[in-house]
């Protein structure tokens, strides 16, 4: 009886150990698959972390896309296996007005309300934010002074998401440089520019917003823009932790007496 119990306990402990080890290894695999900072998701995708907690990997978005833009990530790649993504240099997103990928997603991982006006009733594909097109002016031949506006012409939001800036060509002293410039407030991240770029490895390319954009934080406000100050409402800083109001110092007897 006692011997039997001993074996039971040993069996239980070894099982517990196996479960713990298995859990850690398994967890490691899952973390591995979660770090997908550079992966571009279909239109309407929720922020990456929420997206991964919702996508069931059914591929219905992939099938819905008429341009074969989307594909499911394979095992052992830089995206969690089975999640939908796109590589705009291969096939960009053509911004279908009926956004079938988002509309057909059964889980809400692609959220219609993110790509529509008035709370989801009218689809507006221009609200798509797959990422942001970023320029590498070192390798942009237009920035060299050559004549190229391939990305500008390819942009479905021409003159809104990409404009051309005319500047002086300092090298020749007598020509212009026609510089493409991306505007984050309009850029959908569709990647048609990246697809169109004529140099060997695109000098304009889409990065996920989290990667492409900085963040100002609460320390700076555009005083000239109405409402921008409301951005920092409710935030606290060092001044809030003082015992007295800074103005009290100016009004204090010390200063007046001197």
């Amino acid at each position, binding site marked *: 009886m006692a011997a039997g119990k001993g074996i039971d306990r040993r069996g239980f402990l070894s099982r517990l150990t196996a479960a713990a080890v298995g859990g850690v290894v398994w967890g490691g695999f899952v973390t591995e698959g979660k770090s997908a900072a550079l992966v571009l998701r279909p239109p309407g995708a929720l922020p990456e972390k929420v997206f991964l907690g919702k996508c069931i990997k059914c591929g219905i978005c992939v099938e819905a896309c008429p341009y074969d833009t989307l594909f499911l990530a394979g095992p052992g790649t830089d995206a969690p296996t089975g999640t939908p993504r796109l590589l705009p240099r291969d096939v960009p997103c053509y911004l279908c007005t009926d956004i079938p990928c988002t509309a057909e997603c059964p889980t809400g*991982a692609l959220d219609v309300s993110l790509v529509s006006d008035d709370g989801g009733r009218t689809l507006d594909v221009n609200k798509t934010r797959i990422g942001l097109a970023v320029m590498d002016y070192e390798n942009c031949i237009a920035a060299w002074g050559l004549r190229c506006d391939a990305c500008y012409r390819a942009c479905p939001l021409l003159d809104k998401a990409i404009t051309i800036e005319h500047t002086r060509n300092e090298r020749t002293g007598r020509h212009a440089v026609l510089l493409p410039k991306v505007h984050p407030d309009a850029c959908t991240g569709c990647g048609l520019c990246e697809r169109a770029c004529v140099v060997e490895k695109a000098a304009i390319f889409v990065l996920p917003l989290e990667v492409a954009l900085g963040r100002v934080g609460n320390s700076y406000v555009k005083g000239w823009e109405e409402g921008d100050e409301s951005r920092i409402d409710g935030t606290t800083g060092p001044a809030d932790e003082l015992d007295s109001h800074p103005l009290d110092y100016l009004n204090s007897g010390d200063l007046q007496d001197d």
Partner: protein
Amino acid sequence: MTSLRTNRYLIARRLVQTAVMVLLIGGNLWGWTVLRGNLSSSVVLGTVPLADPFAVIQLLAAGGLLATDVLIGAAITLAFYALLGGRVFCSWVCPMNMVTDLANRLGRRFKTGTGSRRVFGRSARYFILGLALVLSAIMGVAAFEAISPIGMLQRGLVFGMGAGWLAVTAVFLFDLLIQRNGFCGHVCPLGAFYALVGRTALVRIDHDHEKCTSCMDCLKVCPENQILELVGQASGSVLDGVCTNCGRCIEVCPDAALSFSHRKHAMSLESGGS
């Protein structure tokens, strides 16, 4: 002709398994609308949603507030398997079944995969099932879906395999060389989930003790033969949820002592058949 008869359920299962995958593949490659998506979630004829209830439960554990489409789909699938036998999925739909059946058939032929050291017990799958839910909650993603060889296989068949072959080959070799029925019968948490679902199934294997000559052919082919303990002892239904309703025991029985039937009252082994 006899071989057709003695393999009738096997042939039917292969046809169903293949048909489901062909319809899904056609949905992706040729735009067929009968069944679009994959085994994780799909749409029948553009209207009825279906979804893998275990994947949905993992996503819910991960904290995902899912849209109603996929929840309805999971409920429909769950109801279907709760009536027909949870693990009907395993033997009639899951494409991994063809891989492990082949491994186990070869294992029986070449006497491999039955070493004295068993790696996993029959209940390991329930621990793994629990672990899948705990890890999903901690990591915020569906943990089994992140590593599932079944997912890689079925997604791979529809959308392109990539390195998924490695996982499938690993399962095949594990079953062939290390542990017979190792994956489906010991490890797989999806099978464990469907075993729990199948506990109330209405369609069950029925054993007729009067006809049985105790040849035990059924135990040789059954992937979960621990549940056939009533064979040669008592009449009644095989009530254990791990029965996959594959019907293999029925077709190999030379005495017609086994059949599909509705769920019958459990016969206790002590009181004998009646």
